[in-house]
């Protein structure tokens, strides 16, 4: 394969998604950043995992970008780390799950649900994963609007 | 059973445990670059608060005294990362290699 893996993957994804591919960036060797809309997210991930050989999903994470939450899936294959980003509106934070595609991501999605409140449709069990039991419902610590309140211990006197 | 051979060989060897502080005070490994308790030289400090900006654990707090601005150190929060010593322009902060730091009241463990 004469072309470098980065070019091969970007051409493959451009051909597959066409103009739905909002943005493609190759900031450095062995890194590709793709941005897609929510309804292409599952299709793009499936294509990357099954037909472009990126079988290993390193992690699924999210970032608060003001009015919506960017859900980012990091896949690895052919020596290249690909980041697939989809913006999810905070008003309706829903995105299809990838657990049926790669079962290893169950805990990543539960963590993003716990800390960002993004609901992964079709996830086997989205209950509490990392936060303590008495953490209030609907409060997502990694969102910008959550102001960090310092914990005061029962014996604390300052 | 070659592990048995090891067992026998160890019977004659010196014991590995260091019974500090009762015995073996000399066998403690003390390299000269050890990052221990902070020593602050007030006379060199010019109160530029660079150390305050670089400290990761709120150990350093800027206060005033009759000479001028200076840092106060809450040593029970220190992570011994030595970033304050690296960044101080007048070398007035220095991490000694004194590692025996313990106490019964953490409110007193400060450099005022």
């Amino acid at each position: 394969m004469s072309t470098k893996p980065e070019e091969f993957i970007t051409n493959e994804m451009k051909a597959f998604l066409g103009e739905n591919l909002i943005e493609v960036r190759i900031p450095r060797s062995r890194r590709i950043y793709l941005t897609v809309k929510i309804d292409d997210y599952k299709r793009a991930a499936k294509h990357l995992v099954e037909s472009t050989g990126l079988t290993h999903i390193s992690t699924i994470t999210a970032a608060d970008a003001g009015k919506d939450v960017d859900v980012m899936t990091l896949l690895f294959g052919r020596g290249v780390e690909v980041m697939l980003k989809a913006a999810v509106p905070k008003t309706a934070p829903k995105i299809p799950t990838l657990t049926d595609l790669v079962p290893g991501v169950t805990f990543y999605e539960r963590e993003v649900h716990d800390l960002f409140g993004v609901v992964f449709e079709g996830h086997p069990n989205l209950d509490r994963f990392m936060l303590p039991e008495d953490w209030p419902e609907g409060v997502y610590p990694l969102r910008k609007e959550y102001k960090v309140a310092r914990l005061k211990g029962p014996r604390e006197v300052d | 059973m070659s592990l048995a051979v090891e067992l026998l060989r160890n019977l004659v060897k010196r014991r590995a445990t260091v019974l500090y502080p009762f015995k073996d005070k000399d066998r403690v490994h003390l390299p000269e670059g050890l990052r221990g308790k902070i020593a602050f030289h007030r006379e060199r400090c010019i109160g530029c608060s660079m150390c305050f900006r670089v400290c990761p654990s709120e150990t350093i707090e800027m206060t005033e005294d009759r000479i001028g601005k200076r840092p106060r150190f809450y040593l029970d929060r220190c992570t011994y990362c030595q970033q304050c010593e690296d960044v101080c322009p007048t070398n007035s902060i220095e991490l000694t290699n004194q590692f025996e730091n313990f106490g019964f009241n953490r409110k007193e463990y400060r450099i005022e």
Partner: protein
Amino acid sequence: MKGSPRHADVLLVTGPVNKQIKDRIIRIYEQMAEPKFVVSVGNCCNSAGVYRGAYNVYNGLDTVIPVDAYVYGCPPKPENILQAVAALQAKIKGG
């Protein structure tokens, strides 16, 4: 003697105290029989050290259970921990 809090005299705690482990620490502390002593090992345990300000961490073990001796260090050298426990022992004997 079994390795459980009920037979212990001194409880050594290390690492930051977070919201979820707080109740477990209090339960273990209550399981210990009087007279009991607590040694907080490391600056994370003394004062949440580098985690000060995290939404899930308390500002030190002494905001949750009474602490008798503090070992400063991040992490403290093993000899330092030994010396602190020995000093606490001497203090207890000394009355």
